């Protein structure tokens, strides 16, 4: 995967290697018990999954772009965001540096003119 697409990072084998521990932790959040364990002691839970410093810092900061750069895959990260009740407009707003309302307005702006 060598093609550069602006603002886009393809989750390929290289990223899958880099993000394995982080994604494995986020996959565990499919189970409500694990979400509770994470919330009870985030640092210990992250250590159990062997997150590296970059991943730990990104988890602490709840920073989506940093989580992606650390190898996170958006489908697994969504389970992490879900713990805090964040939806995909919250994630989009954070990544684009917009307010949530501005991000939603941007989405609406794609509607073909004249659409009912």
């Amino acid at each position, binding site marked *: 995967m060598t093609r550069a697409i602006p603002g*886009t990072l393809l989750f*390929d*084998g290289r990223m899958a290697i880099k993000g394995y521990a982080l*994604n494995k932790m986020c996959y565990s959040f*499919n189970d409500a018990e694990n979400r509770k364990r994470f919330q009870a002691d985030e640092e210990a839970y992250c250590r159990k999954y062997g997150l590296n410093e970059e991943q730990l810092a990104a988890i602490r900061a709840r920073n989506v772009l940093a989580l992606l750069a650390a190898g996170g*895959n958006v489908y697994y990260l969504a*389970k992490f965001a879900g713990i805090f009740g964040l939806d995909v*407009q919250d994630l989009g707003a954070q990544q684009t540096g917009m307010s949530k309302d501005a991000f939603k307005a941007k989405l*609406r702006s794609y509607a073909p003119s004249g659409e009912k």
Partner: protein
Amino acid sequence: MARIAGGISTSHIPAIGGAIAKGLQQDAYWKPFFEAFPPVRSWLKEVRPDVAIIVYNDHGLNFFLDKLPTFAIGAAPSYGSSDEGWGIPTIPPVRGAPELSWAIIEGVVAEEFDVTTCQEMLIDHAATVPLQLLWPEGNPPVAIVPVAVNTVQHPLPSPKRCLALGRAIHRAVAAYPVDLNVVVISTGGLSHQLDGQRAGFINPEFDRLCLDALVADPERLTGYSVADIVELSGTQGVEILNWIVARGILGAQVRERHRTYHIPISNTAAAVQVLQPEGLKNS
């Protein structure tokens, strides 16, 4: 013999499941999407399917990155769901059709598609939301055959390979010596991107091209690489691969019975399309 009665393709945005749970179908934001479904349900009542083949992508519920198949076919007696980490409503287990599943598996492997087979499999919102949209009263009156396509970890299968897989499934179903009505449900898309600085990207022109090509000229979509589709349709716009597999399952010629296209639902250009094989009567 089994008969392919038609295909329904729909977006599978998880927030739709939340809107159903909260009864927001008439809400101004949601109405343009939900109002696509009464005619689709009327069509389903005419067709009276016994089985639905559901072509979708798992979002990290059944498959993790430890073992991630490019194409997986369910062969389970039933399929459960889960809240997926963010409290999405679950549905009761859905009945499988293991004998048809194995006939499809045998057919496609004989045509050199080396699929993964699953006798235990959880289905996520990409399968449960469409079932809720099509049968809102619950208990879908169909058995299902899930077909999961990897859209999570690149490299993904090419549009060309997806169309060819669909055509192989078509031949396996057409050769299945049991009198069954089969519908194809494919889910996901259309253009959207959840991740990266380009989050929120939507491309109505490319979506229209895809919807038109799926009716009359699916080969046109095989001219695109996966990277082309990411660029034109967003990182999650690649879910069009599910629709391309489904188009292959429907056979050579189809006509369009229904189309809805609406922006936005959540971060997505939402679409619903019903295609029916030519030559089938359905008054």
